[in-house]
């Protein structure tokens, strides 16, 4: 699915056998180091898993280019797969197409909200040509994950990790994080 920037798979690549399925299921259990309630699969970071002549190849994509968790994700994937008996594991990175919050699964969004983090709405559609300038704070409806109120405001577009914005609820007064749409 992300063939463009990854090495073209050899003809021995196997994505469909029970063995490939089993390896994929193990990779899908690995969680995000910064959002531990989400698996890398829920987050849309896990892009592909295949088996090639006994080697398990896992393809991941960074959320943001500076994401410091990429190395940890790689290590966690290798560790988890090795612990499950897969000794020959290769983790590849793909940059294209760029990660979008639209790739977070419905289950992932539900888990975020349950954890107190407002999930993203639909990502802005990609523009071609000059990117339009926005001079006023973006007004979008984000429901408070604590009390459910729609009366919330953005405090800062940046928060404790690159992928989140900081908001406050005007009903219950609680501050909360919001995975911002990209």
């Amino acid at each position: 699915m992300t063939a463009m920037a990854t090495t073209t798979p050899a003809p021995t690549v196997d994505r469909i056998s029970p063995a490939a399925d089993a390896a994929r299921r193990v990779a899908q259990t690995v969680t995000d180091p910064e959002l531990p309630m989400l698996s890398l699969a829920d987050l849309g970071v896990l892009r592909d898993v295949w088996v090639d002549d006994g080697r398990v190849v896992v393809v991941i994509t960074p959320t943001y280019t500076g994401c410091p968790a990429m190395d940890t994700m790689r290590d966690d994937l290798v560790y988890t797969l090795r612990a499950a008996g897969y000794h020959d594991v290769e983790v590849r990175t793909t940059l294209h197409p760029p990660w979008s919050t639209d790739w977070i699964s419905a289950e992932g969004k539900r888990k975020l909200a349950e954890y107190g983090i407002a999930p993203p709405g639909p990502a802005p559609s990609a523009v071609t040509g000059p990117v339009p300038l926005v001079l006023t704070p973006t007004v979008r409806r984000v429901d408070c994950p604590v009390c459910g109120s729609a009366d919330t405001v953005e405090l800062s577009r940046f928060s404790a990790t690159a992928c989140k914005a900081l908001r406050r609820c005007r009903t219950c007064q609680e501050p909360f994080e919001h995975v911002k749409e990209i």
Partner: protein
Amino acid sequence: MGFDNAYEAITEGTDDARWAFGTGFEDPLAGIDTTLPDGVDAAELATYCLGLGDDALIMSHRLQQWCTNLPELEEEVAIANIALDLLGQARLLLSRAAATSPGPGEDHLAFFRAEHEFRNVRLTEVENGDFGELIARLLVFSTWRLALFARLTEAADPVLVAIAAKGVKELTYHRDYAAQWAVRLGGGTAYSRERLAAGLDAVWPYVGELFVSGDAGGVAVDPATVREEFDGVLTQVLKAATIPVPEVPARPGVGGRYGRDGVHTEAMGYVLAELQSVARAHPDGVW
């Protein structure tokens, strides 16, 4: 099997496990096909990526120096995030430059090059000023870089295209942040207006060189082609901020040579001393 921790699992069988700088700091392009497409000149692509990578590295360093010095916690977090995005862009671009030509890798490019080998524009390296200067510099830098990156998504090299496509999403946030602060400072008190105007005057001498075509213009987007979009955005922001466009002469280069040619200001040596001293003192450092 049976490793006690992830570190042990990945270092088994290798004897050069190093963290931070050194070979153990993973290649951010690991597993990406870095084969050059036909018709792309390797040396030109390397030069082009080095320029954009050095811009991000040095700008990120200047932003990192703001940490613990910003007026509010929200601004601390915002500037740290922007610095982190740019550091990520720097790693990818320096890795791309390194993969393009035989020579030292990403870490070596960052930590062991001399001042005249850095290709960043001078705007990124000059001494930090006050908050008004920070916003002015970030506005100019991110407006220029976003215009460039948006056009790079049609470049010939697929790796550069992928890096640019990710960068566009990040830079859009950076530019909006700086532009919205510029409007707030311009429309605020007499003092906040004065500080923003002074900040713009301080960075304006370095604007002209952003659009100099340079040696590697043929391999991807020629920066001269984004001048019009840059002027349009800046005019729009400064109009909303009710601040006139600065009329300050450009700071000349040396014999027509600027940051992209390795000719820097006196501030650059201090940036590199801070950035490189630990790696240079412990070239085989392991931690």
